[in-house]
Every structure is written in C-alpha cells, then in structure tokens.
C-alpha cells in the first residue's frame, strides 16, 4: 500500500515456498511473504541466513529446484499483469534475463572458467536480443566500458581467472543489464568483495539504475548497506516479513523487536558499550539498559606477552623449467602484544593477515624474523620441544564449518587437546573439564555427545573457542572468527570473547576485514596491505586521525550505515 499512485512493477503476494528435506520432513522456507517493488524503486530484502530472502528471489525468476521445492497455492507474483508463478517454462524464460535479471553473490562460480568474459557476455546478447556475432561483440565492448572495467578492449578477451573479484562482479552486472531489464535482482552482490571494491560496485549499481530507469531488489544481510542504497526495506526472519517500510521509517522508528535488535547489535562506531545488545535483550519490546563505556587503548607500561620482529614469509613458485618466482606474503612485520589486550589487524583479502597468524604460530614455516615469547624465539625452537609453547598460542579460524573435524563429537574435540597436553589425571576428569568449558561458552550439556553438523555456525565457533580454552592460552588469535556469522550471532560471540578476555586476561590478535568490529574489540590496530603493516596505532587514534592514505581509503569505504540515513534523506 504505497502512497504512490503508480502501479507497482512487481507485486509479491502471500508467497509461500516449502522445501522437502526428507521423506517426512519439510522446511517452510517462505511463509506468506508480500511486498511491492515500485518502478525505478529500490527495495532491500534484509535478513540473516535462513530467513528465506534468496528463496523469495529465486521464486520470482522460477529458478527454485523443481525436485524438492513447492510453491504453495495462493502465492502470486504479479508482473505486467501476469502471475509469474503460472507462466509456462518457455514464457518464463522470455521474462527471465530480458525483463528481470539477477546478479549472484559469487562471481567466480557464476562465470564459466573456460570461456572469455567477452564471449560469455556476447552469448547472452545473441540469445536474448538476436544480435549477430559481430554486433553482439561490439555491444559487449560497450557494456564492459559501461560497467567501468579499465582497458575494455583488452579485458574483453580475458578469462575469468585473469580478472579480479570486483571485475568479475562487474562482468556479471554487465550480463544482467545486457538486455535492459526492468528489474534487477542483486543477491548479496558485494558480500564476497573487499570493502573498497564493495563501495565501487554499489556506486556502479546505483548509477546504472538511475541511467537505465531500472527497479532493483537488493538482497543483503547487512543493514548498513541498506541505508546507503535502498528506499524501501523489507526485513525478513524465518521466512516471514517482520517489518517493512521506507528506509527512514525502519531505521529511525523500527516497530519490530527483531528489527530493533538487528539495528543495535552491530558494533557502533561512536561508542564502545561494555556488552553488545543481543536479540534476547529486545524480546517482548524490552529496551536494553544502557551499557557503561568500555575503556580501550594502551597506557604503554603493560606487560608484553609476545613480540614479533621482522617476521617474513615468502612463497616460492616454480616457473617454466628452471625459473623460480617468489611471492612475499608477509614482509618485515613487527609488533608487540600486551597481556590482556587486543591487537586488531585489518586489511583486504590477500594482505597477508592470515599468513602472518599461521606463521607466528608455526603452522606455516617463516622465512625470516623472530617471535619472542617468554624470552625465547619461538621460530627457533626445534619441533620436538615446541609442544609446551604450542598450547599457549591458539587460533580460532574463520570458517566454523571447516575447522571442526566432522567425525568427532564436541566432547572428543575438547578431550583431544587435554590428552595431548596431559591436562587432568584421567579421562573422567578431562570430561568434567570439557563439560565445564562447554557451559562457559554457552552450550548445553547435551552438546558433549553431538557432532559438528548438528550445530549452527555460531555454536560451532563456540566449540572452536572452547577447544582453545582447554589449553588456557596466553594468546588467542581470532582469524576472521566472527566474519562468517550473522550479525545477531556475531554480537553474542563478540560478547563471549570479551567476557573470556576479562576472565582469563588473554591477549587477542583479532584479525578482521570488518572495521567496525575491529574498532569495538581492539586496543591497538594494525592496518596491513600487501604483506606490510602500513599503520599501527591505538584504536581511537587510528579511527579518528588516520595518517596513511590507505587507512583513510579503507575508512572512507566503510558503509556509513544507519546514522547517515536520516541525513541523506534530509539532504
């Protein structure tokens, strides 16, 4: 019910989709979702994983898997006076691509690696617009220029692997707009990209939309992006629409508990509450009590736990018959880590953050430098004598689905390090320790006998944290430990990490590409680019007065988020 008199371009009415998981289990992925997309408007579909936002988009294009998805009777998706759900496959194919097209999250897996970008673009044009080979190639060149890829004449002959992630996504966008669609569906188009690239892609999409008078359905989990790009927001959770309205309504006066929680649980940029609010705090319309500010930063006289001097890591590649090429992933890196404090490490993909972490833990052999810990150079300790040091530096990896052995129960995962390091007198005592730790990271008793696949991503990350805690490490490296999690779960895990640091006085090396999260967690921040530390400063100092141009570029690319939204609408 928009006040606007114009007829909506697309009207989704009471859409329901069931997925058959098993012979006797179905998942109601989408439950009666309704919203409109006005012509030329941008609607953002926001929700966490499993909220049904992608399924909704796939239903609009008739791309749901036929084998196990059922669109419930009574669902309607009206477009141009027709119900898209009732079209024949042929008629739907004519709409898809030409009038409604889609950009997916992973550009690399959406492009065919054995054809050039230009060929794939021309193919789309030949299929849908009936252009002949030469015309299609000429048009492809124009499109590549339009999506802002430098040297279009050369790039048109490039294979997908020769293009950067951002350029691949630009090619995908070029394909999507090739037939001048009236609606562009963008499903998390920037999630796989670095922040600076994300910014450029968003700008590109906005420009194209204005120039071509397209409507857009922008699907994302990131509320901060929504404020930048959309004018209408639909918040989904568990297959239902929780709230919808204009950006101003939703951001400034959210009515739904869940929306309010989502808005609040991202670490704020202006302050550092003692704990982040989580969804439970908002249940039943409650308002969480204001939190005291958490002091951050170093005084300079703290005890130093770990000192890294001139750390270097080079990878050698064989090239040709005898040639060798070296790639320096980490170059001359030095920093000190104080007890009970957090060093945040930010940088884009390929900047050497993870390599640095693996190298200083000896999970990867360093090419040079020293890691001083307890007065000894860890890198020089022989393998046989390294065991006592290993337990004192631990790591939580990014991907909660890959870092736990799928054949071990949570109990076995926790018992293993206890056995290796001889903690506890027997397995009974070790089991008691493991259960206590599970409780401490907020998992129920029954988790002990469960396998990783029975847990959600956030719970798995808790198990990974508990595994590290079994060894009572002095240093815990969190390598993008919260990046794969939904924002609400992310807040819970950040709170947990914070509580554990307060309790055990562990030092954290907190690696993340998310500048807001790093600002919330870190006392000191190191900015990395191409294997080098370009800037290292106290957190407040770095965010307020970045000195290096790259740091400034990174900070400028941060989605300004909700706080900018009212200003934007006013301006």
């Amino acid at each position, binding site marked *: 019910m928009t006040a606007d008199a114009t007829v909506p371009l697309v009207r989704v009415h009471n859409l329901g989709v069931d997925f058959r998981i098993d012979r006797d289990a179905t998942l109601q992925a989408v439950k009666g979702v309704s919203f409109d997309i006005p012509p030329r408007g941008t609607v953002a579909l926001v929700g966490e994983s499993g909220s049904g936002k992608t399924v909704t988009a796939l239903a609009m294009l008739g791309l749901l898997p036929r084998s196990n998805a059922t669109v419930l009777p009574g669902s309607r998706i009206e477009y141009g006076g027709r119900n898209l759900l009732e079209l024949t496959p042929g008629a739907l194919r004519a709409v898809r691509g030409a009038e409604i097209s889609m950009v997916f999250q992973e550009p690399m897996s959406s492009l065919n690696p054995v054809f050039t970008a230009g060929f794939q673009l021309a193919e789309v044009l030949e299929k849908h617009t009936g252009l002949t080979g030469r015309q299609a190639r000429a048009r492809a060149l124009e499109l590549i220029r339009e999506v802002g890829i430098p040297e279009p004449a050369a790039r048109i002959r490039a294979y997908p692997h020769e293009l950067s992630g951002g350029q691949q996504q630009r090619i995908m966008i070029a394909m999507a707009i090739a037939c001048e669609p009236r609606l562009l569906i963008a499903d998390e188009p920037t999630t796989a990209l670095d922040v600076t690239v994300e910014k450029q892609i968003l700008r590109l999409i906005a420009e194209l939309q204005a120039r071509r008078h397209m409507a857009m359905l922008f699907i994302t989990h990131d509320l901060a992006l929504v404020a930048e790009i959309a004018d209408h927001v639909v918040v989904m959770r568990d297959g239902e629409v929780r709230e919808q309205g204009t950006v101003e309504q939703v951001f400034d006066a959210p009515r739904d508990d869940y929306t309010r929680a989502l808005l609040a649980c991202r670490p704020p940029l202006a302050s550092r509450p003692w704990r982040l609010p989580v969804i439970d705090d908002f249940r039943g319309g409650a308002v969480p009590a204001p939190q005291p500010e958490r002091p951050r930063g170093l005084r300079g006289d703290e005890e130093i736990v770990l000192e890294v001097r001139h750390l270097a890591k080079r990878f050698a590649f064989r090239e040709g018959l005898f040639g060798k090429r070296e790639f320096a992933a980490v170059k001359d890196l030095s920093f000190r880590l104080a007890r009970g404090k957090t060093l945040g490490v930010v940088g884009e993909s390929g900047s050497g953050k993870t390599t640095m972490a693996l190298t200083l833990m000896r999970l990867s052999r360093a090419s040079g430098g020293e890691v001083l810990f307890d007065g000894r150079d860890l890198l020089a300790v022989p393998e046989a004598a390294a065991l006592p040091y*290993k*337990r004192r530096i631990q*790591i939580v990896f990014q991907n909660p689905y890959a870092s736990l052995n*799928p054949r071990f129960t949570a109990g076995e995962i926790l018992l293993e390090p206890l056995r*290796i390091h001889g903690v506890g007198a027997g397995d009974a005592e070790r089991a008691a320790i493991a259960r206590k730790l599970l409780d401490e990271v907020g998992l129920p008793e029954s988790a*002990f*006998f469960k396998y990783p*696949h029975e847990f959600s991503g956030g719970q798995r990350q808790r198990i*990974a944290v508990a595994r590290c805690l079994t060894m009572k490490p002095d240093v815990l490296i969190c390598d993008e430990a919260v990046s794969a999690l939904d924002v609400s779960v992310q807040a819970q895990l950040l709170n947990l990490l914070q509580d554990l640091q307060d309790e055990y006085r562990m030092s954290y090396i907190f690696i993340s590409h998310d500048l807001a999260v790093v600002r919330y967690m870190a006392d000191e921040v190191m900015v990395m680019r191409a294997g080098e530390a370009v800037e290292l400063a106290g957190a407040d100092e770095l965010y307020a007065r970045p000195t290096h141009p790259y740091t400034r570029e990174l900070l400028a690319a941060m989605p300004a988020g909700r706080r900018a939204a009212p200003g934007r609408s006013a301006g």
Partner: protein
Amino acid sequence: MSAAAAPAPSVLSAGLWRLAWTRLSRDATALVSAAIVLLYLVLMAASAAGFIAGDWSREAGVSYAPPAFQGPDAVSPEPSAIADTGPAAAPEDLGIPDPLAGALAEIRKELAGGSAAEAKAATLPFGGDKWGRDVLKKAIKGTETSMVVGLVAAALAVFLGTLFGAMAGYRGGGTDDFFNWLYSVFTAVPYLLLVLAIAAVLNQKGVLTVILILGLTGWTGTFRLVRAEYLRHKAREYVLAADAIGASHFQRMYRHILPNVSHVVLVQLSLHVVLFIKSEVILSFLGFGVGVETVSWGSMLNEAQNELLLGKWWQLAAATAAMAVLVTAFSLFTDALRDALDPRLK
C-alpha cells in the same frame, strides 16, 4: 555437577556413519543387493567350514550327468555307446581275437556302474562334469574360492593404496615423488604382462598366489584417489587446528584425516572386490589362477570351454550365473554405498 556424573547415552546423536546407514537402509536396491551379498558370504563361510560342498570332488554321478530337471539321458551314455558302436565296429572286425577283450568288457561293465562299489547317479541337481562331480557343489566351492580371493586381495590392494596414498598426499615432497614414480611404473606396464611377471616370480599356483598377484598390482587406483583426498584435506582448517593443539603428524594422518576419507576407501574396497572376483575368473581361465586341487569359477569356465562342444552347458551356466548374480549385487550395493556415504555425488 550431579548431571555431569551421569552422562545419558540415550541422547547419543547421529554421527555421519549413522546418517549414511539411515540413507542406505531406505534404499530398496541396496537392501536387496546387500541381502544377496550376505547370502554369498554365508555360503562362503559354510563352505570354508566344510558344512556344505565339502565333498565337491567326489565323483557322485555319471560323466556329464545332466541336471535333474532335464532328466537322465534317454539311454545311459556308456551302454548306449557300446550298443551303438558295437554293430558299427563289426565290419572292421577282422576276426583277430582281441587279447584285451576280457579286460575291456570288465572296464565297460564298471563304467556302466554295474559292478561299481557304489551306484553313480544318472542325474545330479545341476548336472555333473566330465568326472561326474556335482556342478552345484563345484559352484559353491568356487564361490568360496572366488570370494576369498576377491575379499582378501581387495583388502590387500586397498590397504596398500590407502597407506601409500596417505603418505604421498600428506607428506608431499620427496615421499610424494617416490610414490608417484612407483605408481607410474605400475600403471605403465601392461596389466597382463605385470600379472605374468609376478606369477613367474612367485612360481606356484594357488589361492595365495592369486591374492598376491591381484593385491600387489591393484593398489594404484586407490592410491591415486586417497592421495588426492589427503592433499585436499591436509590444508583444511580442522587439520590446521589439530596442528595448533599439538597433534602429531601420525595423529593428524590417521586419527583426523583418515576417518574423513574413509568413505572413499570403503567404496574402493567394495569396487575392488567385484573387480578382483572378475580378475580371478580371467586368471584362472587363462591358467594362471588356482591349481587343479581346488575349484573356482574361472577353472569351471575353463573346463566348460571343451564341454560346450559336446553340448554340456550346465557347468558354464552354473559358474556364470553364480558370478553374474554376485557381481551385479555387489556393484549395485557399491553404488548405493557411495550415494549413502557421499550424497553430494548423486
């Protein structure tokens, strides 16, 4: 604390193995083929223990006794042969008294079963071979031989392949180069030539020899797959995490990675049993297989080659049917097993 003292095993949750079993048990084809394979295993065990077919080499029937359902030959072969050839031979009778006539008559009488200590059956359940041995019992005994060869040789080959693959994939570098070199050598030599060479070196016939031949030549496929899996898994974060908590190389190789590639190993095992049962048949058919003191499907087929000319089809039929049913059932079971263990492949 009180709750911690009494862990409830009733909440034992479904591991990946159990999930695979659930998927497998819903597959009708898998269940039927598993039942058939199980039946063969029972036959094999019973035969090995001597409960059935222990007397397979007893000459229980007349030579080439037809199957019971076909009924005995219209006239018992030997007397009729005498009757037929008797008059025909007459013109050639030059009137010279045959000095062996008496002994010959004796032999003929014995062959006809007239004066034999025990009467020989005119028909057998599924016919008899040249020496009147029961083809059904031979087929059962052959099942024992073939299954033992298939199972043990497959276990040996897959064990070697897994061990080599794990070392090569996990350790990399020189170890990997060495095993790759070995792999290349084994796969570069034509298969039969390799088999002949090993047979020549071992220089004796028998079940053990066949097992060794198949086991020592058959590890290459498993090696390639397991090596690739180890390469993939050793870079996974859970293996890095195991390194971080201080697990040794041995623990990472066998406690962490092996269970995660075990579905590959299991499917390879299953595939190789089928492959080796067929290989044993071919080897025995070619004469490199088991010796005359025992029987296998391959040696039955070898004998059947000559029998077919005489129209005695049952030995061929028995060996072929026994093999075809087992191989088909085992292959179907292997497919189902693969789907159950790795549903993404489907």
